[in-house]
């Protein structure tokens, strides 16, 4: 089962999927800078057909939190992970 969120992050950040997990954050992935954050938001909104608020975006400081936000918004199913 492919983790869609990790796959998306790996694609945007240009890193291996294996190098990412729920704990990955701007502090642990050097490619995750502010420009990448902007691309990530665009990509998440496109792939998950969702609009994120600035509050959501500010919260998203790790892949795990991104998943939680997407689950709360009802666009990601916990069982599918």
């Amino acid at each position, binding site marked *: 089962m492919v983790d869609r969120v990790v796959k998306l992050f790996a694609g945007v950040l240009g890193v291996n999927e294996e190098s990412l997990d729920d704990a990955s954050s701007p502090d642990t992935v050097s490619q995750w800078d*502010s*420009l990448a*954050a*902007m*691309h990530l*938001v*665009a990509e998440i909104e*496109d792939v998950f057909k969702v609009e*994120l*608020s*600035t509050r959501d*975006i500010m919260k998203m400081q790790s892949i795990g939190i991104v998943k939680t936000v997407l689950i709360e918004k009802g666009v990601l199913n916990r069982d599918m992970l």
Partner: protein
Amino acid sequence: MSNSRSPQYLKELLRTPQKPSSSESTDIYLAGSFTLDPLVPYLKAHFLAEGVAANIATGPYNQVLQFCHQPESYIDKAAPPDVVCLIWRIEDVYPKALENALVEGKFQAELKIELDRIVEGLARLREWFQGIIVVSTPPFPQFPGFSANEVGQGQLGARIFQAISEYWSEQIAALRQTQTFDLQALLLLHGMTTAHDARKWYMYRQPYREIFLAEMAWMVSRIILAQKRSARKCIVLDCDNTLWGGIIGEDGIAGIQLGDDFPGRVYRDFQFQLKRLHQRGILLSVASKNNPDDVLAVFNNHDAMVLRQADISCFEIGWESKVESLKRIAKTLNIGLDSLVFIDDNRKEIAEVELRLPEVVCITVTDEIADFPMILTGTGWFDQAQMTEEDRNRAGMMRAAQIREQESSSLTEEEFKHSLALRLSVFEVDPQHVARVTQLVNKTNQFNLTTIRRAQNEIEALVLSGQHRVLAANVSDRYGDYGLVGVGILEQQSGDIWFIDTLLLSCRVLGRDVETALISAIADLVDQEGGCKLVGRFIPTLKNSQTEHFYSKHGFQPDRQSGDWHADVSVVKTLSQGLVCDISIHARQKT
């Protein structure tokens, strides 16, 4: 917006491995007053769709002004890009002055001075950088006090913005050789609500939604490609249910739909669009399965027709297939099939043309007829880097050519030549001719010995170069003035040897000894420069086979080693003797 311009499609295109369809590439430097990085993938994708590999670098955030005044700190003069593209907004560059404008209630001197600084910077950049410069117009500010939906503001923001826009367009018009990217017009087209993303603006200093960024990239790519590419020259139109509603052969002139009410208004507006393109120099032709008299009666007698018989360069009315009609039109007008755009409501006709004449661009009348009048806008097929006087006159000249052809059949060839009163004038080009010369260099396919394409700034550089002579030829006869239709670029190789880098003639003057007169006049000019030998080169392309034997027919001998052609100036110079053509030659006054 068509699907092929959606952000999703463009990103997918970038992910799909491409086999390079052309070796063309272009280097672009983007500088913006906001974060431009998200524009890059869309721009790349649009170029990729056109077979061009774009290498794009982005400048640092909001340093447009510094960049213009000190480009050498940002780009390497030894390896400059082909294009510099500046996209800026007044609220990013001069927020304080803009705020003060609201307080003072007018477009004040302070803001004027600030705008002048950008224009001065652009002038400085233009001087320093030889490539293509694209600059955006300032868009309506995304700035407190400028919102469109505040009651009681007295349209203050709108009035200030209008003053800014007018001032800017006056200033930028004075700058030569700078392409405008009308960001404001694009914003108007899509609307601020669609374009702006306040979240991204506050968080990342990037004001626009993805969908608008993709559209910006589309416009910018079109502007840049128009600098290098030739545009389509002729629109071929079906009549029934295309130029008017209904079928003339069945409904009669009183029964077809054309006028002020629906659906007649739709066809009338479509004709207005065509008329506008015609005024810009695009040729119009008709390919219709009908009785010629029926169709011509509509053109001549229907009150609501916008297009008249005189607007149409070529009528092909009969019962032949559209494929044959298109071929005949291309032949009559002496242009390639790849210069044609074909519009018809019949899907079967369109399918046949697409299959058998893939070079022709085909457009089917839209199912939703209300969308039909605007079908040609934004397609990019008629984009031109710069309109020239010749473009505006072309349609009239084409008609003169047709009259001439009709008359020629009744005279002997010699009589005809005398009656023509052909005149050729060859001269060294001045700056005023450079736009037209560039256009010919980039779009002439058939009579073009080397087919070397060059941008306008490259031509300008050659004009100034002491080692080169850029020559142009005007042709006229008793039927009309064809304007500037020939170009020759010569390079002094060593001492008395001159190399013919470029030699081309617009096909509308071919076949009347103009070629011979031109090469002879060139030899004459080289003679005046003290040259003794001419070296010519033929580079074959898919379209210039008619020039393959040009040099051998004009006294040049092949050089086995290089494949080039050599001739004595004294021999070539005398070729004009015996031609029925009045030739005048003007070297530039030496200063």
